[in-house]
């Protein structure tokens, strides 16, 4: 008999015509792993909440959710509490939001253990530390007394998994468990989940938008779209022979990674942008006594950009890539270094730059909703740069320009009367791009411009940017943490770690023969959307240090190739075979 049997599940919200989940059926055997894939709004999280009995009161669920023969739908909270934690548990997307910030890690664990009468008193403490060890939390005894804010994102997610495992449930539901984490940490957490599954035989329901994660972790998969199940079956089968067009396009978007990288059209080798030795230091809060601590967010970064070229800046959160982008845009004043536009030096602050210079450099931000003024309609948002770029245009001519700007990014003029919150993520990001393109820039800085978008919207926006580049010879600085995106759109790639440049190479060279161990660690951490491939090499250990930059090479504490020299001396950046790399052992190592 199956452990979990969902039959004809429909979840509808009062006042919303389309149900969030419609007629969903699937089953999960003991010890099996099932991946639910789908874009946001496809009902995958609603399904998970429905199984756990966590739907809000205005949701109405119909159908059957049989857990080991008991129908959970319509059971009282008291009965459900006997199932939750003890027989099924859930790990949420954002570990920052799901731990109580006012309670120590250990107390949160012992609380669950005591509530479910698994252990009490000293025994509970022992069990909690044991659990923390099991999720490979380094230094578990000391961390037992730590507060959530003292842990990194990856550690918090490990604690969440420990909480979920505390009562030895038979089913673990993981809702986008690694989406909020950096790639190397994502690989570590997924490896941990696999290890736990192998040792305990727990059944796993993994919800994700990333088909690569499913390919590597799930035996069976279910694709959802707008609340409806599209297809389900063995993961290898669906990857090999998808029947639905939506599945096919989702797979195609994931597989672009294997496409040939874009090539730079041959032409002038003039520099449209050159960035020299940029340094930014952030000061910490002023302590009651003693000196302020400062943190080098960007430490001596240089690169240049040719017309029509896309340079990707890659690295994990906190590596300084966004700060670098903001320095180039003139939103952050650097402590040293210079930015030249077409050979002329640029003022450090956007306010002090000449209008013609300002027009040349525009930016698209990560969160499409946050970058559009919520109190303005789309027409006014796009109209603002039109009025500044071409003052003195009449009402009709201005309106024509606005319509031309939005149709250039593939939007309909009827959207001009909408507010940003009435747009989808992809539409909002197009509006943001339309606004940036109005002053006819030479350089577009994209700060994680597709990170907040779903698969198909992401592909469409990337294509739009590439078309724009082919049409107008736009150069782009593309800030991202996603190597699949990098592979698809960039000509050259700059890899950063804790404010320093590790490697600067062209697309083919970087993926074909990484020169820096950190580059290799990043590439190895990417989930591969090919279930037929064998297991990946073990992910790089450790995480970006929370405070304090290590002496010497910043990556050396996590580097498997580190030698004593790496801890003592910061490697110089030098050119080897056309690749700029900062590693003491770059010449001798073969990392391909």
């Amino acid at each position, binding site marked *: 008999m199956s452990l979990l049997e969902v039959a004809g599940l429909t979840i509808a919200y009062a006042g919303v015509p389309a149900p969030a989940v419609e007629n969903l059926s699937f089953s999960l055997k003991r010890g099996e792993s099932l991946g639910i894939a789908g874009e946001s709004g496809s009902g995958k999280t609603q399904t998970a909440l429905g199984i756990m009995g966590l739907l809000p009161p205005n949701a109405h669920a119909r159908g059957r959710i049989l857990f080991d023969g008991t129908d959970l739908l319509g059971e009282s909270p008291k009965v459900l509490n006997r199932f939750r934690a003890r027989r099924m548990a859930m790990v949420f997307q954002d570990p920052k939001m799901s731990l109580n910030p006012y309670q120590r890690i250990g107390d949160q664990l012992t609380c669950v253990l005591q509530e479910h009468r698994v252990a009490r008193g000293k025994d509970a403490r022992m069990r909690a530390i044991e659990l923390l060890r099991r999720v490979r939390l380094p230094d578990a005894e000391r961390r037992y007394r730590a507060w959530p804010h003292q842990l990194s994102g990856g550690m918090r997610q490990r604690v969440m998994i420990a909480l979920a495992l505390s009562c030895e449930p038979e089913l673990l539901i993981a809702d986008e468990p690694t989406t909020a984490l950096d790639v190397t940490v994502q690989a570590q957490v997924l490896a941990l989940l696999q290890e736990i599954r192998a040792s305990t035989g727990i059944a796993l329901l993994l919800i994700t938008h990333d088909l690569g994660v499913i390919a590597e972790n799930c035996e069976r998969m279910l694709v959802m779209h707008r609340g409806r199940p599209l297809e389900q079956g063995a993961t290898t089968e669906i990857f090999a022979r998808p029947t639905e067009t939506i599945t096919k396009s989702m797979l195609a978007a994931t597989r672009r990674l294997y496409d040939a990288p874009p090539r730079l059209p041959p032409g002038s080798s003039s520099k449209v942008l050159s960035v020299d030795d940029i340094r930014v230091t952030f000061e910490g809060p002023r302590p009651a006594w003693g000196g302020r601590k400062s943190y080098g967010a960007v430490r001596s970064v240089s690169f240049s950009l040719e017309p029509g070229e896309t340079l990707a800046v890659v690295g994990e959160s906190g590596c300084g890539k966004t700060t670098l982008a903001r320095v180039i845009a003139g939103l952050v004043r650097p402590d040293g270094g210079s930015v030249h536009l077409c050979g002329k030096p640029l003022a450090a602050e956007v306010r002090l730059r000449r209008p013609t210079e300002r027009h040349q450099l525009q930016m698209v931000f990560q969160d499409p909703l*946050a970058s559009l003024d919520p109190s303005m309609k789309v027409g006014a948002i796009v109209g603002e740069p039109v009025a500044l770029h071409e003052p003195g245009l009449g009402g009709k001519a201005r309106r024509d320009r606005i319509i031309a700007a939005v149709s250039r990014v593939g939007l309909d003029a009827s959207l001009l009367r909408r507010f940003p919150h009435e747009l989808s993520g992809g539409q909002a990001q197009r509006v943001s791009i339309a606004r*940036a393109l109005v002053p006819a820039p030479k350089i577009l800085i994209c700060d994680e411009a597709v990170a907040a978008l779903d698969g198909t919207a992401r592909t469409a926006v990337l294509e739009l940017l590439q078309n724009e580049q082919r049409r107008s010879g736009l150069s782009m600085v593309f800030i991202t943490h996603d190597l699949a995106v990098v592979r698809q759109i960039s000509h050259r790639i700059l890899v950063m770690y804790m404010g320093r440049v590790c490697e600067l190479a062209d697309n083919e060279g970087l993926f074909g023969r990484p020169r820096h161990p950190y580059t290799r660690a990043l590439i190895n951490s990417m989930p591969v959307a090919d279930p037929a491939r064998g297991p990946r090499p073990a992910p790089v250990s450790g995480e970006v240090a929370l405070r304090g930059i290590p002496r010497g090479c910043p990556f050396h504490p996590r580097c498997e190739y580190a030698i004593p020299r790496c801890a003592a001396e910061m490697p110089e950046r030098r050119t080897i075979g056309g690749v700029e790399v900062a590693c003491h052992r770059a010449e001798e190592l073969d990392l391909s």
Partner: protein
Amino acid sequence: MNTAVVAGRFHNGGTAVKVSAGIVLFVAAMALAVPLLSPHDYFSVNLDQRFQPPTLQGARLFGTDDLGRDLFVRTFSGTRVTLLVAIVASFVSLVFGVAYGAIAGYAGGKIDAVMMRMVDALYALPFMFLVILLMVAFERNFLLIFVAIGAINWLDMARIVRGQTLSLKQREFVDAARLIGVPPLVVVFRHVVPNLLGVVAVYVTLTIPQAILVESFLSFLGLGVQEPRTSLGALVNDGVVQMERAPWLLLIPATLLASILLSFNFLGDGLRDALDPRRRQR
């Protein structure tokens, strides 16, 4: 956002908002009409008609007070003063406080520090003392009440708006505006202030009751409205003295005052929802 949209959303608000809007409009209309239309006036003393309970006879709907003055007219003439004080004081705090706070918050750095230390310094002044000084230096002037109450309220408003501005200016749409070359003052009033209005609306509706209370306190001290002119606060204070002999002198103005305060609170909630473009229309 255009007025019609706001009005439309406002109309879609809950019952409490509609009832409150009705009460405020009705009271305001009465405050305008009653002193004009009534056969009585608010100042004529009539000693042989003292302490008359409310009755329909002779248009003494709310009875008379200890000097035989008609309470119906006095109540609504007092409402005029009260509403005027409330509206002018919150208008001062709205315009001046929002502009000051938004500019300080957006400019940041030294400008912000100097501007906000000035606010702190003004906070430290004992305001009642200042008002008394003003009254002594100038003649007793109705205008001074507005000046005094507005001067207190804009400080709070400036602090709240500055705090909101500090977080709003970190938002990416402000960066986007800077990048396309929108001048700083235009960024403040086009992108920052409209997004503050929800919070401001709620705070203004808190200011209105506060202003009404300060006005009644000043009147009680003899520094506010002078007899025979009156306000709701002054009427309540008078009513307290006669509570046992003529309870209507307290109950009627107090009920009116309370319902005005309550209505403004509900209106504030409604206004906040109406001003938030993210809020879906119901």
